[in-house]
């Protein structure tokens, strides 16, 4: 998927409605995704994409009847779009994950929560990797 079409797809997500999205579909199997309940915290700036702090929390009672089944981290630009999947259950107590991730350059990262009722919720964050590369290309 091209970056532009992904961004368009993401901007669609902001309004709750979405067309089929090849980036999220492997996880959602085409189910609707709503923005909300998930909070993804990443720094606006990271000096090096090798290790960027990340914190995801999902509003959930984490009970047997209503809990977060999984949290997926999806990257717009990494060679492996599905960066990580965390599988949770009611015994996790709270749906919160703190970690560090590797980012292949500036991009938007999506945190996708899969609930026990089968619904999907999301948040996204823009991270600028301040690459100071004396490279020839002007991209990035």
């Amino acid at each position, binding site marked *: 998927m091209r970056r532009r079409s992904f961004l368009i797809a993401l901007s669609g997500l902001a309004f709750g409605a979405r067309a089929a999205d090849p980036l999220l579909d492997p996880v959602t199997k085409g189910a609707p995704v709503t923005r909300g309940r998930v909070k993804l915290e990443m*720094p606006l*700036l990271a*000096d090096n994409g090798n290790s960027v702090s990340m914190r995801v929390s999902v509003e959930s009672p984490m009970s047997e009847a209503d809990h977060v089944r999984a949290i997926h981290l999806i990257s717009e630009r*990494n060679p492996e779009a599905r960066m990580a999947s965390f599988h949770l259950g009611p015994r996790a107590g709270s749906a919160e994950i703190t970690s560090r991730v590797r980012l*292949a350059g500036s991009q938007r990262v999506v945190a996708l929560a899969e609930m026990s009722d089968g619904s999907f919720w999301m948040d996204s964050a823009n991270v600028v990797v*301040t*690459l100071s590369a004396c*490279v*020839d290309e*002007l991209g990035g």
Partner: protein
Amino acid sequence: MTTRREFLKGSAAGGLAFGFHLPAAYAQNVAPEVNAWVVVRPDDTVIIRYARSEMGQGSMTSAAQLVAEELECDWSKVRVEYADTNAQVRRKRVWGDMAAVGSRTIRQSQETLRKAGAGAREMLIAAAAQGWDVPAPECTASNGVITHGPSGRKTSFGKVAGEAAKLAPPKDVALKDPKDWKIAGKPIKRVDIPDIVTGRIRYGIDAQLPGMVYAAIAQCPVFGGKLKSADAAKIEGRRGVIKVLPMEDSVAVVADNWWRAKEALKELPIEWNFGGNESASSESILQFLRDGLDDASNVVVARREGELEQGLAGAAKVLEAEYFTPYLAHATLEPMGCTAVVKEGRVDVWTSTQNAEASHATAAASAGAPLENVYVHRVQLGGGFGRRGGSQDFVRQGVQIAKAIAGTPVKLLWTREEDTQHDFYRPLSLVRMKAGLDQSGNPVAWYSRISAPSIISTLLKLPLKEGVDPQAVASFADQPYAIPNVRIEYAQRNPHVPVGFWRTVGHSQNPFMRESFVDELARAAGKDPYEYRRGLLPAATKEYGVLEATAKAAGWAEPLPAGVHRGIAVTEGYGSYVAAVAELAVNDKNVVDIKRLVLGIDSGHVVNPDNVLAQMQGSAVFMLTAMFWGDITVKDGRVEQSNFHDYRMMRLREMPKVEVVLAPSGGFWGGIGEPGQAAIAPAVCNALFAATGKRVRSLPLKNHGFEIA
């Protein structure tokens, strides 16, 4: 007669305003901000903000010229001021990229800067028109004065700036054709020079704060090693010593002055865990790269055209050669360092950086503070050359130390030895080339295998597109010659020595190899190396144009005095096109007397011709230094060189005459800070061949017994 005072006053025009004020004052700047780039004071002083860094490359001036050009202000009233990184974070990165790297300040920002100037001009005109109650299109701006055409009324930028700042920025503004430029395109003096000459300039190393303490650092001499232990008790109680701070791969000593910190550190018993690289040497590293020339595995193709094997099989003559370039250190005059205070959740940093925003991000991460609480105070750099961009190791250390003695400002300063031995070096590179010539001597097949580390994957940790590091194969993968069968291969081989961006990066070494080998082909074909290249370059290429302009200026066709010989080379780099002609004589003791170096550049547009000239001259100093002496070698896993006695710089008397040919063909924006170096080494080595019959296939020249006159 101009008095000294008047001169100083006069030379301050178009000057540099140092941001010694507190960043907090920034948001409530008393002078109206027309937009993020332009502030106009009531006294008509125009402050143009500059987002990137200034390390002698001159873009602080050139960038301001582009803004001023469209703004139609009075250049003598311009002050250039750094954009603040804290405001950058709070204002959603309003100034965009802050990195001064990749020769891209102008080529990447020119449109933004010109539009900022034009947008501010339109707002100032609109404010004046509003005040006069006349249509804005009836008003014009020139030299900081707005005139209402029909009535002849005039006002100045300073008088209407307050009102202009309240207006919405125009959606679209037309930009001038460069042929109509009055400020841009002119050899305007650099705004920071008066302060450099008078000693008023402040570099990172000059940071001085009340109650400041000092830190010296020792890093694991073997790359990749870690600190095992440091027996702090041995130096505690020494005069002035405040703290011994063990870190992951280094240890710092903090004292009341830097000398005491450094001397105490020398006495500190330190044990390292070398991590397995302690037996690596230049020989083992070279062998590792050599394996990359012969291995069939882990090799990727960077460019493929035609059928190489067929081309070689059908050739009348096949030439083969191996070329080598060594690791190089940046050796900035100002060593790495960082002054920081971590106090009550706020982090203040003073450091010479090529990317203040990256320093900001690093400081926040190291202190564990939110980005909004970090302030990176802008200073000039005592040399950058790529060392102070891609890696912010010095900021990480400085803030970590400051955090450990929270509340007290601490200045971390590396020794020259630490700096030389803990660089991110220009990668070494071993290249095998093969070419097949037809009956008339023209190449019908070209093969290169580059065995070299990848900066992109090891330093930036970015994935490589199809396994190719574009810098490692630069000027091979994009070579401009018309050759039907080409294959360029890349064998990524990463020894344990950290590599980074060294001014001109891949173009600092690959054109030496490519253009020297083209010279070999020309000699084998029995042809003049200039005419040979002209014959192979399509006439529409920019390389063809700059080669011709440079050869003409150098008088290539003219006879030379007895004993003087010439060499020539051409290449692309950083969006510009460069060519070089070297004239030299070599005596029987291998002393090289460079009589003349003619450097040509086509950068498309030229924003400041005097600065282009200076960058080309500076490139000659930098590259001649590297090609004669630059050689970082490894023994027992560590770098052998330590200071200027064994990592030599060129001396004033050794510097040859440099003539610069500006050959801008317009229509594009090429880089300036780096491309100047690219064609120098091959031109000089090709002239050395002409003079001596010796083909230099590895650098530096000192290893071949050559000295400079």
